[in-house]
């Protein structure tokens, strides 16, 4: 109950932020020089009347604030407008493309967490030993290397040279297996999904992994120096338990914050990863929308990504509150 109340409270708090995002994107999209109508009509003879007619159809002839109000009232009904380029509702387009992006981002995070946390713990525990140095160097490479470049190199090695993994695309595990040729049953589908996901996941997850690893290591070092660890040692708790339980749990708190805060970096990175791996997600949709000057779609995507970020932050906040008993719902900044 408390949790529900807190969630609602946080969601309400997010409303002004979302409105702000809509204002920012609306202004950016409408103040710019790119004119969606002339782009649409490119290559056709366009009379003034035709331009007018189209402007009218999309409400482009009305003053900015009116258009904004219309847009926002539509938004309240879940209507993000109509994509000019695709001639489809923006919300439908986004729904189509949300899945792959979420799958990609979540798996990248899973990869990052699963690898970074043990590595960070080991590095902290073996501080200044070779293991520690090696993992720190690896983390340094991780935070310094562009994800798309990692992607290119991975494709060349694992897809082109070795032929082990596919170079692009994605299988969607939520589809019936029959929609893919040669796939019999869910197990095979999941296997194929995993094969397709592996390289983009690593490309996107490396930065997160390196970031998390660095934080994990620092936090573990700090946590291992904590008084409560001294106490546990003094009471004969085995080192292993201290590492895995006493020191570990406290050190995870900042990780949760990092995961939340880096979400927007990860979503941005997804744009690049989707491009390199030809994954048909929100990032690709965004690039198309930008290239076609489809401002309705751009706005919709930006709002959606902003919303996703806010939701992600709320989820991390809630998990923070769950893990850290000191946080009382609603009081944390």
């Amino acid at each position: 109950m408390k949790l529900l109340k807190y969630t609602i409270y946080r969601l309400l708090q997010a409303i002004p932020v979302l409105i702000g995002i809509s204002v920012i994107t609306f202004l950016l999209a409408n103040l710019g020089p790119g004119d969606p109508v002339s782009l649409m009509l490119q290559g056709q003879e366009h009379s003034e009347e035709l331009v007018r007619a189209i402007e009218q159809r999309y409400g482009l002839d009305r003053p900015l604030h009116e258009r904004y109000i219309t847009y926002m009232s539509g938004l309240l009904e879940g209507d993000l407008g109509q994509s000019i380029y695709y001639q489809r509702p923006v919300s439908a387009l986004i729904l189509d493309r949300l899945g792959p992006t979420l799958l990609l981002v979540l798996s990248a995070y899973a990869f990052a967490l699963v690898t970074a946390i043990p590595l960070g713990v080991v590095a902290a525990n073996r501080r200044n030993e070779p293991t520690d140095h090696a993992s720190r160097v690896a983390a340094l490479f991780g935070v310094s290397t562009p994800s798309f470049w990692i992607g290119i190199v991975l494709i060349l090695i694992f897809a082109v040279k070795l032929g082990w993994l596919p170079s692009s695309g994605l299988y969607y595990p939520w589809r019936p297996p029959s929609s893919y040729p040669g796939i019999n049953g869910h197990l095979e589908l999941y296997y194929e999904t995993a094969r397709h996901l592996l390289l983009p996941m690593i490309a996107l997850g490396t930065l997160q992994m390196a970031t998390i690893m660095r934080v994990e290591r620092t936090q573990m070092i700090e946590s291992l120096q904590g008084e409560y660890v001294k106490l546990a040692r003094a009471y004969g708790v085995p080192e292993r338990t201290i590492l895995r339980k006493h020191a570990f749990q406290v050190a995870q708190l900042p990780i949760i914050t990092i995961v939340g805060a880096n979400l927007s970096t990860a979503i941005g990175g997804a744009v690049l990863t989707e491009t390199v791996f030809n994954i048909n997600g929100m990032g690709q949709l965004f690039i198309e929308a930008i290239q076609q000057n489809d401002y309705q779609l751009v706005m919709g995507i930006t709002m959606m990504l902003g919303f996703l970020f806010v939701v992600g932050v709320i989820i991390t906040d809630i998990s923070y509150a769950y893990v850290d008993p000191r946080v009382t719902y609603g009081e944390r900044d």
Partner: protein
Amino acid sequence: MSRQMSELTRRRLLGSGAAVSAAAIAGCIGGSESDGSDQLHFTQEQSREENFDPVISNDAYSFQVIQLIFDGLYEFDEGLELQPKLATGEPTVERDGTRYIFEIEEAAEFHNGEDVTAEDVAHSFTAPVEEETENASSYNMIESTEVIDDYQLQVDLGEDPYGPFELQTMGVTVVPKSYRTEDRENFNKNPVGAGPFEFSELQENEYVEIEKYDDYWGDLDPNIEQARFVAHDDAAGRISEIRAGNTDVIAGIPNDDWSVLENEEGVTLHSSESPTYMYMAFNCNEGPTTNPEVRRAIAHSFSMSDFIESNGENVTSPMYSPIPPVVNEIWEFPEDEYQDMLPEYDPDQAKSLLDEHAPDDFTPTIITPEGIRAQLAERIATRLDEIGYGADVQVLDFATLVDTYTSGNADDYQMYLLGWTGGPDPDYYLYPLFHESGAGTNQGHYYDGSDGFHEAIAEGRNSAGQEERYEIYEPVIREIVEQLPALPAFTQDNTMASRNHVQDLQAHPNVNRNPTLVADYTNVSLE
């Protein structure tokens, strides 16, 4: 059927210069070589707009699917000439080329079991105009149609004949009228045609699947049971896919990757010249380039043939007039003469011409999309630089380029590099790109021409008979080559690469007809 080419296919050529990638379709389909499935995986070079109603559709990549599901009244053969398909033979031409009477195959039927009738063909001709689709301009020369009986159709043009009618317009793709008009939206996403394949599944922006239609009315019996179309906008990504064996066929091979694939085991390359026209147009509206001597000087300043050899040898061919060589095979304009007329690489000549006719600090602005044309622009800039001038190359993204190149403003550009693809008729290259009506929309050179230049282009359009039109067009082309409102650059080839287990695949000059899975002259199969 290639009506979509004149207008929006152009988008392909312009757009192909845009950033790393636009839309893309997920799913290289894994392990096709090993799974032994009888499905052909075809990776298209750009995303489809997912319009499969030929009346509406005007992108080449949706049409690559459409052409397999539908039959045309006539269809292009490998030499880009129309051959009867649903028509029984050549049309009867009456009224000085303004009336055509077609006879339709009685055996033909759509996948829903209905017969292909004159009514359907009439609808296919008139619907684009009636419904104001983006293909309307390809059929607006048709004034009326009259269904004589179920299998005879009369098509009346206006007062004037329409030159390209016989070479292009009558290659219309035939749709079932009643089924289509019942629910146009459904038809667009779930089309029914009379072709050798039927539509089986669409995942929008992802893949389209088609299946062999067992009860096809014609003689053709495709070896391919199923085909799936996916798109991958990024060329390097497509090459990765074919090299990794994740797909059976890819289209669109960049020049450098051609050599890579040549050395790749298990991959076969296919290429065909296509009716494309890449050119560098000069601003004849404002600035120094209004002077033909300046234009010639620039043409003298670099060697186009060297450029093609070094940067596009595998996937382009030289051209010497606005008429692509593959089109010229039908028309036989004196290409050799044009080639001689075009300024040769001669830096001294270029320099002296520029010294005489251009301002001292002449540094023209060249606007270009990314890719090989940007490379050409950079080459020209370098060469101009070597003779004491220079050029400001601006590689623009598609949207900006489109906004810029029609302004006619000397501050925006002196030259722009673009391309155009059309059909087997000179009209497609001359009318939109050189007629004054296209100024500010399709072209930005604003070339005035000699007396009668524009009239001739219009007259050529509204004349019937290839010989008569040849006489009209020849001086026009000659003037373009002489005065150089646009310098012909090269023609782009349609290229494909397939894994070796794909047999009998060949590239078609018309991008819409790739892949031709089954035709009189070929039948693709998987081993």
